[in-house]
């Protein structure tokens, strides 16, 4: 268990470095939902190219790591262990897509980049999505048994 916390801390620092590069070099906030959403709805405009390159790195490097290492803890192939209930997956995807664009940010934009800037909006968003997430797990997992 504690080894997972160390992996978490080390991975977290790398995520923070990624955000620092995107901010200090490119002058942008590293928010996954904003980067993807702007491409989906066409609002990215002249930024589209650099966003696509960002996504190539975000998708490509873990793909290579998963092929070379498998699961990071060495328990076999890399997996997400997501539920096989596709109805739940579709509902969750829609909620995440609608919600992050409405709130203008997700775990990376509001959470990592917002909290570190002491942004009141980032902190408030994080409180709401964590509370809703906890509430969701209680309802969907413990009460309804969907996942």
């Amino acid at each position, binding site marked *: 268990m504690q080894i*997972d916390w160390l*992996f*978490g*801390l*080390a*991975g*977290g620092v*790398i*995520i*923070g*470095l*990624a*955000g*620092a*590069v995107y*901010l200090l*070099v*490119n*002058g942008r906030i590293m928010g996954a*939902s904003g980067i*993807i959403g702007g491409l989906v*709805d066409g609002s990215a405009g002249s930024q589209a190219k*650099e966003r696509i390159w*960002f*996504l190539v*790195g*975000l998708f490509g490097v*873990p793909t290579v790591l*998963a*092929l070379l290492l498998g699961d*990071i803890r060495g328990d076999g192939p890399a997996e*997400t*262990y997501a539920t096989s209930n596709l109805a739940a*997956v579709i*509902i*969750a*995807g*829609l*909620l*995440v*897509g*609608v*919600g992050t*664009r*409405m*709130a*203008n940010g997700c775990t990376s934009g509001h959470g990592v980049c917002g909290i*570190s*800037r002491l942004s009141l*909006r980032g902190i408030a*968003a994080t409180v*709401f*999505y*964590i*509370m809703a997430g*906890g509430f*969701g*797990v209680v309802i969907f997992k*413990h009460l309804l048994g969907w*996942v």
Partner: protein
Amino acid sequence: MRNLFALISGGLFGTGLFISGMTDTRKVQGWLDVFGEWDPTLAFVMGGAIIPMFIAWSLTNNRTPALGGMFPPKPDPVIGRNLIIGSTLFGLGWGLVGLCPGPAIASLSFGGLQGATFVLAMGVGMYISPMVKARLDAAAAAV
């Protein structure tokens, strides 16, 4: 150059998500599951990520980005309806399956049918989000 550093940043982001275990939905749901077997890993990830970002923000004072342009201005500290409703909807979806936008892309190659379905549904959700928001605005105006 912008594209190169965007690629590097995205690659680091993916590496961090992969190493931290955030592409494993059990760890994310474990953090949210306060009534189950609670898993504190996500707090370590968040804490670890905030340290370099905090330093990065402090370096933006009186400077400009290395490749030109301006740093993003701090938004008005207004906590509006969209922020609250949007974050709540996002949180519910996040709790339901344990994926958020970054890890969903990072795990696409090994996430199977569920992973691909999630990303597709998320894209549709992002596309229709302005329409949902307009409906809510209209409903709120009518009250």
